């Protein structure tokens, strides 16, 4: 039983590795030159689109998974949903961090500023803050049942706030002058395949890391159980 499970994920890991390598090749080497940019730097920087946006989407997918896991945990009370929620937050935070950093890297050569208050970037940052807070909440609680319950509640409230925050910031930005609008970076037809391929590759990467993280947490639980049963033998 265990051996076949190990085999299953090895296949997934290999497939993901291949996907990522191909995506990197498509994005960095083979990708078509973008039409509406002026300098050499901007042309290369624009390739970030193959990373930046997929990272954002996968990050939000991760938080959706956390939301589902949180709801299921409160409903059923089973530890595995808590593990799913927690693991997905950690991976999600990594992806959103990458989103923010790539966004910043893109902004500098294109608009000569490290940061812009673009609605999507701002929402991503606030979302990032919410899930960092999630992790901080967990680390501040010792009782495992309470930790799981509170984290689940925060996971639910936090997730619900994301779309509301997005709209609020979007309306806010339409009044102030906007430095750039990412939607101008439209996807021309010959960019679509590398983009969606990249998206698929990073979604697979998310799954791979998530599965491993969930496993680690289950193993940690097992260790704790073994420890408890050993120390209570009279």
């Amino acid at each position: 039983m265990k051996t076949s499970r190990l085999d299953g994920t090895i296949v997934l890991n290999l497939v993901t590795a291949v996907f990522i390598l191909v995506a990197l090749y498509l994005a960095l080497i083979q990708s078509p030159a973008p039409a509406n940019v002026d300098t050499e730097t901007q042309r290369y920087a624009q390739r970030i689109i193959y990373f930046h946006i997929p990272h954002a989407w996968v990050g939000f997918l991760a938080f959706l998974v956390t939301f589902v896991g949180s709801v299921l945990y409160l409903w059923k009370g089973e530890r595995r949903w808590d593990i799913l929620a927690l693991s997905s937050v950690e991976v999600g935070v990594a992806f959103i961090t990458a989103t923010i950093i790539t966004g910043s890297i893109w902004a500098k050569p294109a608009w000569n500023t490290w940061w812009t208050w673009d609605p999507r970037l701002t929402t991503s940052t606030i979302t990032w803050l919410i899930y960092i807070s999630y992790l901080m909440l967990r680390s501040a609680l010792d009782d495992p049942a309470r930790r799981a319950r509170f984290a689940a509640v925060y996971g639910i409230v936090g997730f619900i706030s994301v779309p509301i925050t997005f709209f609020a910031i979007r309306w806010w930005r339409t009044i102030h002058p906007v430095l750039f609008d990412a939607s101008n970076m439209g996807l021309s037809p010959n960019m679509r395949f590398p983009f969606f391929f990249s998206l698929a590759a990073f979604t697979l990467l998310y799954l791979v890391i998530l599965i491993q993280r969930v496993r680690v947490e289950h193993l940690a639980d097992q260790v704790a159980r073994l420890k408890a049963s050993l120390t209570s033998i009279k």
Partner: protein
Amino acid sequence: MATIEIRNLSKSFGSHTALRNVDLTISEGEFLTLVGPNGAGKTTLIRIVATLSRPTNGEVWVDGWNLADGAAQVRQRIGFISHQPLLYGDLTAEENLRFYGRMYGLSDLPTRIDEVLQQVGLLARQRDPVRTFSRGMQQRLAIARAILHHPVVLLLDEPYTGLDQQAAAMLDEVMQAVGATSRTVLMTTHDLGRGLVMSQRVAILSAGQLVYQAPRADLDEVSFRQIYRESVTG
């Protein structure tokens, strides 16, 4: 008809099992003292019966009501005294009792408040803020709070903690005065001497398991200490 029935009760906190398949029945009007070392699970057990905590497994019935679906009815029937007074320090004794009285939906509250204050010997201090009370006085007021709504069951969790000899003796007196001996009572303590004085039955909890039960009449303090030592370390 048995008033407190605990069937196959288990409680785990993560990987730590605090209670293991506990079966205990306390008959109507009986006073049972549960003793055990620190960490045995006494507080966990009594908090479950008090509806402050949910069991992982098993069932508890109080006065014919199952905790799982009749929690509100159970709450109406139990009075709980812990080592914390559960009183608001900034409010007067009278205000505290009025608050709890309203929460329990009691009618003719002023009369009832005077009654219980009289019983615990605190009528003269009714307009003083509780934070000016000594520990012993707070505990007496806690008893007043606990019996305000005429509960048929009293649950006492280590009530003598922090009390000196005098205060403890006074507590005993007060418990007699409020008819503790005619209600159904479950008391936990790690003070073996006190444990025997008022009870009709004793039980020993060790490492989450019930290891001994006997009617009080069969024991004296010496033999009980012997049995305790053996049950807990053996």
